[in-house]
């Protein structure tokens, strides 16, 4: 093989650059900075979300889209959860009425995963609890 040292050096350099995000984030400790959600201490609904936490974790965006379509396009405002509880469908008022600290709840996972939902460009985030 001609120029073996150069080729091997090139391969090593390529791998190093291509995997830069992985080892850089590992070295800087960013990977260990996992989401730390602060759940609301809410007495309003007895510390219970609209649907169970497991569903909300992976599919809250589906529920929000469904609420958006029901409210805006169908003019329906009341959501009845499977357990019979009824809620006014509103991200800004109902969801954020309990989850009063966006930075300690929404942003935790969204930032970690690099997701940038544009809810907050219009919907007003709460000013935070006291």
């Amino acid at each position, binding site marked *: 093989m001609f120029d073996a040292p150069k080729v091997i050096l090139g391969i090593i350099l390529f791998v190093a650059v291509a995997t830069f995000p992985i080892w850089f984030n590992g070295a800087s400790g960013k990977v260990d900075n996992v989401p730390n959600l602060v759940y609301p201490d*809410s*007495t*309003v*609904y007895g510390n219970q979300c609209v649907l169970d936490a497991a569903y909300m974790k992976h599919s809250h965006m589906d529920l929000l889209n469904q609420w*958006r379509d029901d409210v*805006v*396009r169908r*003019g329906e*405002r*009341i959501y009845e959860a499977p357990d019979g509880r*009824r*809620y*006014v469908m*509103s991200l*800004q*008022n*109902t969801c954020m*009425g*309990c989850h*009063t600290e966006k930075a300690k709840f929404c942003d935790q996972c969204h930032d970690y995963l690099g997701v940038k939902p*544009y809810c907050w*460009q*219009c*919907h*007003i985030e*709460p*000013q935070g*609890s*006291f």
Partner: protein
Amino acid sequence: MSFERREFLKLAGISTLLGLAGKGSVQALAQKVPEVPPYERPLTAKRWAMVIDLRRWTEQDSRDCIRACNEMHNVPQFDNPKDEVKWIWMEDFEHSFPSQENHFLSAEYHHKQVPLLCNHCDNPPCTRVCPTQATWRREQDGIVMMDWHRCIGCRYCIAACPYGSRSFNWRDPRPHIQGGDPNRLNREFPTRERGVVEKCTFCEERLSQGRPPACVEACRSGAMAFGDLEDPNSEVRHLLHENYSIRRKPGLGTQPEVYYLV
């Protein structure tokens, strides 16, 4: 004295509870998760319409109604008229009703200021041109609705509306709402973002809670009436039956649902 022992004990009890609960009570009050019951009694109609009596309309009404609407819906105020965003606004009679601009119009109407808003037309041209169906006429009550999630900012609807009822957010509206003071935003209603068209929605968010539109509620002279045009016993039908009314640019065939009594 009307302040009886029973009342005093009630008040004392509540004060003590609040005092004991301390921070907790403040937090509970701060959390405003909306209650369901008001939404179970919405105001409904087959075709919403508004009747504005220009004979009774006062300058105080102009200020009250516009302020109420702007505060309710977080409508931004821009210094540059090219950036203007308006839901309800005032205009001269001659510009409001171009076809009624007779020679020697009565002095009262020559410089009359007329409140204008979206006419919620029966045959709205704006909805026909919207490529994303971000605006449409609700079949159930005739309100020309907007879905700000879906608006792509093409501004076809602005070109199509013959009444200037639609405004485009050329700039980020947030710093221009209530002087850019976040504490003065209406936190129960969203703002819009740059690149989105907005307009009056006949306060459908209030109707769904059984409340009349904000401008109607704010109008102290009672010059604004709001009701169901399909209901022969409604206030708007009585007013239209008993008075001569005009509408803006009726010749265009849009069938506006805001009537003016002159």
